């Protein structure tokens, strides 16, 4: 339900994975394949030397620091910021206001998500089929969408549980006076297994 960019997640995992596979395979080849190892020993010190001389040839501020290293630090810093932003961007999209309606030129009516949360959770709590319920709202494609997650007790038929939730949702829509797209999610879990089963026919 959240606005996590899933394609980006997969692209990121793909790139990271491929880089790791290449580095890993490279290390194994250098260590275990004699031909690769000798080629590496032939070439690597020369490359390292040329990097060192490039560093020495590009001083900045004073003679000890190269601008190439400064650029490397800047690049690492940028990468660090991007990675943190990427990690923090996950799982957003919840909204605190369910409905905003302009009632006149100057007035606006805002219905808080907590209204839905409390009335739906209270209504569901009267049914013994449910061990727990939680209601949240997400902003998807410019619309508020409710998510009603219920934990049912052992043995409750999913269709029956969903019908109860949908009746509650219908009642809430009638109260609200407007249609509200909703996702119903039915879960089992520890609380469902630990509690006594209810007889439902």
């Amino acid at each position, binding site marked *: 339900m959240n606005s*996590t960019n*899933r394609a980006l*997640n*997969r692209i*990121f*995992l*793909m790139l*990271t*994975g*491929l880089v*790791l*596979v*290449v*580095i*890993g*395979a490279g*290390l*194994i080849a*250098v*260590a*275990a394949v004699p031909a690769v190892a000798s080629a590496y020993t032939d070439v*690597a*010190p020369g*490359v*390292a030397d040329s*990097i060192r001389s490039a*560093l020495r040839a590009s001083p900045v501020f004073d003679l*000890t620091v190269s601008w190439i*290293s400064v650029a490397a*630090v800047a690049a*690492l*810093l940028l*990468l*660090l910021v991007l*990675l*943190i932003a*990427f*990690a923090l961007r*996950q*799982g957003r999209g919840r909204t605190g206001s369910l409905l905003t309606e302009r009632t006149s030129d100057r007035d606006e009516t805002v219905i808080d998500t907590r209204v839905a949360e409390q009335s739906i959770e209270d209504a569901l709590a009267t049914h013994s089929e449910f061990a727990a319920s939680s209601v949240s709202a997400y902003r*998807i494609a410019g619309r508020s969408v409710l998510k009603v997650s219920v934990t049912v007790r*052992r*043995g*409750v*038929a*999913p*269709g029956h*549980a*969903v*019908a109860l939730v*949908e009746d509650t*949702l219908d009642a809430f829509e009638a109260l609200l006076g407007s249609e509200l*797209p909703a*996702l119903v*999610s*039915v879960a*089992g*879990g520890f609380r*469902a297994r630990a509690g006594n*089963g209810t007889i439902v026919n």
Partner: protein
Amino acid sequence: MTGTTALQRRILRRETHSSRSALAIGSAIVLALLCAYAITEFVLHFLGRPALVAAPVDMLAALAALPGTTGLLVVIGAGLALIGLVLVVAALSPGRLARHVLATRRGATVVDNEVIASALARSASRVANVNRDSVRATVSHRRALVRVTPSTGRPVDAHAVSEAIDADLAGASYSPPLRARVLIEREGKVGA
């Protein structure tokens, strides 16, 4: 309000497939820590302070002299390649969650496989006339398996149980559809 809209289809797809965010966040944090470490070493080097582990220049030298430490290198290489492979597989596999979509009046509903299994087990135990704990049901992507352990001396009508389970599944349209198999254990249980 019957039929699924584009919005509902999108929601249902997202609710039945993993977002891979745990793995993505984990990898991003590890990479960020590596970046922070490298930056620290660079800055210490700039300030002329001693390095935490190795200064960037020393790392370069160590990298050039790699083939010296073969055994450890193979282990590290294999480890990195394995982690990389896990990430690639995670990136490409569908990442289906153990859930089914249930077609209902309003449209957007997902049900954990565990809940479906529990409901089937209840039906089976009622028809077979055994204790609830004598029925084990598991639901996977396309199959439901119900195992009934009869009470010793009281045979269970496998056909009746099958019919009850099939009726349950027919009464609720899951997607992907489930096919049930009922197994009556040969060994009964005393007093159950």
